């Protein structure tokens, strides 16, 4: 099974991805995650301006099987939310790496990126789960 896993993204052990552009981080869930979840019916996202912390929950994604927390890859302030997903979460299943982006964060410090996985480690993680 080949997943879309860009080399320059960061990944978390909870299957979020983070795309870093200077100090702005775009966050989403990976293809592996949406596959495990099944059909996603609801997503709860924070408000713009909300403070998030690395490793803490910033929202919830709900599928038929279960409701799962979404964990922030970095600490910072939420500057943009993909609110169209609340009305129609299908992009999370159809295009989780792109159109299904969840939030954008203004990162407090790039030192925290050292705590995240790079693509090789993430590939290893998911291969162990299959």
């Amino acid at each position, binding site marked *: 099974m080949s997943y879309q896993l860009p080399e320059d993204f960061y990944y978390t052990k909870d299957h979020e991805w983070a795309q870093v552009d200077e100090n702005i981080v775009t966050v989403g869930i990976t293809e592996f995650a949406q596959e495990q979840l*099944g*059909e996603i*019916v*609801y997503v*709860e996202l924070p408000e713009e301006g909300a403070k998030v912390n690395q490793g803490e929950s910033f929202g*919830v994604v*709900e*599928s*038929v099987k279960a*409701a799962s927390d979404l964990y922030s890859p970095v600490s910072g302030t939420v500057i943009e939310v993909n609110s169209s997903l*609340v009305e129609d*979460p299908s992009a999370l299943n159809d295009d989780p790496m792109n159109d299904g982006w969840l939030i954008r964060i203004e990162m407090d410090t790039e030192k925290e990126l050292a705590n995240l996985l790079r693509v090789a480690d993430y590939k290893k993680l998911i291969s162990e789960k299959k």
Partner: protein
Amino acid sequence: MAEASSHLNLKKTVLCEVHQQLGARMVEFAGWYMPVQYEGLKEEHLNTRTNVSLFDVTHMGEFRVRGPKSLETLQWITTNDVSKLQAGQAQYTLFPNEQGGIVDDLIVYCIEPGQDYLLCVNAANTEKDFAYVLANNRGAEIINESEQWGQIAVQGPKAIELLSRVISSEIAAMGAFTHRSFAFADTQVVVARTGYTGEDGGEIFVPVSHTVKLWSELLERGQDLGVKPAGLGARDTLRTEMKYCLYGHEIDETTNPYEAGLGWVVKPAKKDFIGKAAMLAVRDAGLKRKLVGFVLEERGIPRQGYNLLSFDNKEIGRVTSGTQSPSLNIPIGIGYVDVAHSELGSEIYVDIRGRGAKARVVATPFVKTATAN
């Protein structure tokens, strides 16, 4: 249902390898290693409503109750009236406990009135139920036959056609809740025109020696009918759409059948049974709560254990089951609510992790199917 990473201690049905060959995702259920899905939950669910699906239900328990004291014993330990069953008839019933709660729900099949009956019980309760039957026996011969029977449920609008092809054309003439023995290969199988999906079809009791053969033939010879295997995931969404009770959700040792809407399988006028007075007392005092079906008017999934609230934020009940209905594409749920909020059209709220999601009590079953069940 937990993913079974170590399935060494789990019981396996004779079809286990077949499921894995078919690419099933296997999980632990009631101590068994079972297929939760093959192609996908929604596909398997919809295929059951449109064509025909095969379910491995070998994990269910089967008990034989025999001898001149069999009827007296069954009348004492069940709520429905066993005496009205003739040979070849079956009935849905409950094992009651002394507090008027429910030990299990089951089907009783009459093989010979007053002499010979087969009971089919939930997999999760097989051991508990066997101990219950033995403890309350009134002189019948009780045999746990669970290990000798495989069981395959064949469900869907094309199920009877498939069964007619593979087992006997006489199946088409069988009425609902009847059962008959037929030759299959060099053995005998029992076909019961029963099911847990709301669709037409049957549940086939087949000796474990021939279960794989029967499954394979049904799968091969039903290709043009659209036959597909279906797992426990689809089984659950199908029964939820019908508002059928699942033990451990809608019913358990603490729930009263009248509150669960199962008063129709309780026949106090016909016989005495364990816990009868306690069971009737709840009915006679006037029901305080009722099991209802509801649909969400907002996004979210109602899950077992979530609170149900009134519009002014008072706790009025709890969710027992819920899912996104594959047939209707909306969230549906089943739960107990205070009688004041149980009327059709009542506005209730589901507490989904602190958010009150608006819902409406509706008539059930949620989906109209060919059967009246």
